[in-house]
């Protein structure tokens, strides 16, 4: 250990394939996500909202079976995903912005200097976790509502995949938008405000002011239509709602990714 030497130690490893590097970085991002307390808080909040309200709505249906006689529990779960999505959006967003807020991006980029790999892995893990958990909780909410509603709600298995696809699409597009905004703005407060404006405030406000066509161009309108099967205003279809959400998500990810790849780490 103490022998004098002027020979440089080169510990260069065998070149690792980009695919393997991506898998490793995803594993690190998974550990990073679940070793931060805020992630668990957001998940707890989402669980409370979606399963708690699912149970409560089931009991309510049981108590007043005339009103919602024979309605599908899947719709109950979808409508509960509407408020619960905000916990998952915040979950995905803070998975990105916490690193900028704490300065943790400095060691992160020392460990994964290939920024495109870091961007892909962080996006995959945050969006994947938000979508997967969101769908699981929606399924749990549907089951709880069906169980507690007695005969007031039905659970047609054939309609289950459609609910999973819709909730999955809304949660994945919303989480991708949140991640993109996180990378783009690098600030939790600014990104959260922007996210709420796009998903909630502007669609409602513009629709209320009579600008339905403009309100329908925001991702919040798309999410509302897909989950509630209606819009407060304007005309949307499943396809236009999905496209609106996906275009916003792709745009945010593109801009956020470009900022991460091109600019200084945390200036």
């Amino acid at each position, binding site marked *: 250990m*103490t022998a004098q030497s002027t*020979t440089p130690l080169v*510990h260069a490893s065998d070149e690792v394939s980009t695919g393997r590097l991506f898998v490793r970085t995803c594993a690190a991002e998974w550990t990073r996500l679940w070793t931060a307390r805020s992630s668990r808080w957001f998940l707890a909040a989402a669980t409370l909202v979606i399963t708690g309200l699912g149970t409560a709505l089931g009991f309510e249906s049981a108590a007043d079976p005339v009103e919602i006689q024979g309605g599908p529990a899947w719709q109950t779960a979808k409508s509960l995903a509407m408020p619960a999505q905000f916990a998952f959006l915040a979950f995905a967003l803070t998975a990105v912005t916490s690193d900028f807020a704490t300065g943790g991006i400095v060691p992160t980029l020392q460990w*994964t200097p290939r920024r495109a790999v870091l961007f892909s892995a962080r996006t995959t893990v945050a969006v994947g976790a938000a979508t997967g958990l969101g769908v699981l909780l929606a399924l749990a909410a549907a089951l709880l509502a069906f169980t507690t509603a007695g005969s007031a709600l039905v659970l047609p298995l054939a309609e289950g995949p459609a609910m999973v696809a819709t909730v999955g699409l809304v949660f994945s597009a919303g989480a991708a938008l949140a991640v993109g905004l996180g990378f783009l703005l690098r600030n939790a407060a600014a990104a959260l405000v922007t996210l709420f404006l796009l998903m909630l405030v502007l669609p409602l406000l513009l629709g209320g002011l009579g600008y339905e066509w403009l309100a329908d161009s925001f991702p919040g309108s798309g999410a509302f239509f897909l989950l509630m099967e209606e819009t407060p205003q304007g005309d949307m279809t499943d396809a236009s709602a999905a496209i609106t959400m996906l275009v916003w998500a792709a745009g945010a990810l593109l801009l956020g990714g470009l900022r991460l790849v091109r600019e200084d780490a945390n200036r």
Partner: protein
Amino acid sequence: MIEVRGLTKRYGDVLAVDDLSFDVEPGKVTGFLGPNGAGKSTTMRVMLGLDRPSSGTAVVHGRLFSTLSEPLREVGALLDPGSVHPGRTGRNHLRVAARTNGIPTARVDEVIEQVGLADAARRRIKGYSLGMRQRLGIAAALLGDPGVLLFDEPINGLDLDGVLWLRGLLRRLADDGRTVLVSSHLMSEMQQIADRLVVIGRGRLIADATVDEILRGLGHLHVRVRSPEADSLLTQLQEKGLNVQRVDAQELHVEDSTAEQVGRLAHTLRIPLHHLSEVEQSLEQAYIELTSSSVEFHGHPAPVPAATEAAR
């Protein structure tokens, strides 16, 4: 081996690093010195791919850091020890690092033990002192057993035991043949640790030499002498053409001379001496002389309150 060539980094109107070129060689501890705002941290950030250079390059073993697949196995670095998620435990922080580079978790526990954080590793980082955060950062730097190590102000916050430990660690790493670059403001520490110094000011290279070369190059060996007949000795020394400064009634500092020369003259003149010594140039003095024109931020003495003046 780190090679910096023509490196320039500009933040808007601020020129942080200006056409900087130097090498950091293996088997040595290279001290990286400069006043506040000289561009040391910026240079290290560019080396690590955190900031994009405006022009020029900084490469490690001929490669840009940002192209490395397993950087922890090649370059370990401690920059800002506060740049960590405070809610994560020290061990989990290192687990994330290990996973990115395919390093087994057993190695995490090894480096935790090595840096003396075993008792605190499962506590949240927000409860760590600055010294503990420094140790955690050093643990992360050592995780992949790299051949190149960069430390930005690693002594900050360490207690005496920590300083001694770090001094030994840096020496061992260099003796292993690794490339070690350490920035610090503590000149006395650098004098003990560094084999070579790279001194920068206002983003430009001021000196790139061994510690001995820098001390010798500045010269100015001076002699401290005390005598009850200091006035007479002062006159005689000045007549010999020497530059002498009076320190107090009995003490003189003789520039560019030797104890032998001053002692012989005093003996010839039968002037009694109470003290005679050669004062070694310290790195601190050398540093001040080197960078005096490159200090960007100057402090000013606090104004003396009027009441104090009146009391005089």
